[in-house]
């Protein structure tokens, strides 16, 4: 298992902490833009756009994006995984907060 470049779990607020770095984020699909991009809502309620998505038309309601942070509000995707249509964003948001603060040592 390649652990050389771990992707921290982020929401919109934490996105700006990792510019140019690879991150992992679950987004709620708002609108697909063509077949290679979409905009989504993060677990803390902000809009983020995702580019270079392989097959944006077959995405489920909730998608996990692993990619590189382009700007405060956009990610360049490397991989997208469908997380289905039922996902608890509030619990996920709490997880993201814990994974980046007091329990960071468990994740990175």
């Amino acid at each position, binding site marked *: 298992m390649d652990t050389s470049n771990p992707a921290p779990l982020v929401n919109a607020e934490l996105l700006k902490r990792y510019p140019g770095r690879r991150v992992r984020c679950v987004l709620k699909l708002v609108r697909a833009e063509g077949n290679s991009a979409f905009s989504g809502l993060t677990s803390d309620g902000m809009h983020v756009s995702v580019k270079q998505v392989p097959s944006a038309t077959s995405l489920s309601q909730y998608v996990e994006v692993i990619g590189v942070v382009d700007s405060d509000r956009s990610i360049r995707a490397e991989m997208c995984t469908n997380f289905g249509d*039922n996902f*608890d964003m*509030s*619990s996920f948001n709490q*997880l993201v907060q*814990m994974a980046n603060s*007091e329990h960071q040592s468990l994740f990175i």
Partner: protein
Amino acid sequence: MGISRRVYPLVTLNPYQGNWTIKVRVTDKGPLRTFRNARGEGNLFNVELTDEDGTQIQATMFKDAAEKFYPKLELGKVYYISKGSLRVANKQYSTVKNDYEMTLNVNSEVEEALDEKKKIPEFCYNVVKIDGLGPHVNGRELIDVIGVVQSVSGILSIRRKLSNEEVPKREIVIADESKKTVTVTLWGDLATNQGEKLSSVVDESPVVLIKKVRVSDFQGVSLSSNPASIMQINPDIPEAHKLRAWFSEEGKDAHMVSAGASLPGGGVRTGSRSIFADRKFLSDVILPTVGDGKPEYFNVKGYVSYIKPDQAMYYLACQSCNKKVTEDSVSSKFWCEACQKTYEECSRRYIMTVKFSDFRGEAWISAFNEQAEALLGMSADKLSELRSQDVESKVYSRELEKVTWVPYVLRISVLQTEYMNEKRQRITIRSLSSVNWEHESKYLLEQIASMKKEA
């Protein structure tokens, strides 16, 4: 009248300084009650007094004083009061935050203040927002809430088990800007009179302020009234105006969520216990002290780790009464002792033990027909068919393996029994359900939060 007009703030009053006058509003007035003690009997009533600074104190009047002042002290009016006595508050009987409580006797002076009524706030309140109710759950303090009324139930009558009297109750749901809702149960007078009033204006989405409610953990979080509670419909206070403005702009179309849903015990809307109430780890449940004397019930989440393939698995059961039947090897018929009849056929019903594990421990747990059928995904009759057809036991053991490592939440009973002079623990599955990961995550988050608090 001779009242010294120097008004003292309520907070400066103490039992050793008698020469004071206070200017207070009666913010609560209790009913005239009768008491009887070793010294005799009489009437009493108490009031809550609030002054300009918002300090509150409870004042009680007995016998003659009660007769004298009951008609005089009106709820909501402002009075100059002097020549009362103070003593340390008996917290058992008071709902007001003050170290002292006041008693007025026949010589106390009470004069209505007809001037500057506006200086003293109409009533004191310290509201907790609906999404901030979590930390107050099961707390000892009574709190105040304010919200827009979403619904008002009809009057229900509950019979109190102890006194066998009928108590009316009504449930209302309120919401605030946090977009969370909470149910408030109104009891007694509040349910009948004020509840009725609320019911008639519910379509106008009135704002209601309820003071002194208790916070319980029923369905996550629930509020309930008590004799000290006060309800004000559309009070003229800034919070109410803010709420009304919010509601007409976005609140009325907003999607609301119950505040209890994100709290332990609230996610599952079962009528009875929530699945997290008796949640334990297997390591706690297998202790020899558990279930000693009478059965104890718990809730565990884990996995079936092993099913012994060469146990009986099922017994031959009477199709009428489900009890055990004995097979007559000669006639191939089945005799039921309980029914006193012979049957051509019998059914098979599960009786098996499985090994159940969680990350802390493991235990052997018995499963009867309904639960075992749910676990194995097939009836005992079908399983026995597989077992007998399958000479090399491959299909049979594969079916048993399929059951393992599937997450379940079990409700179990634990009982210490004696078997051949040896104390053994018998654990039985009462019911099982698959894991709801959303609820489990929320439960885990709450556990983490409470561990943080302890640390």
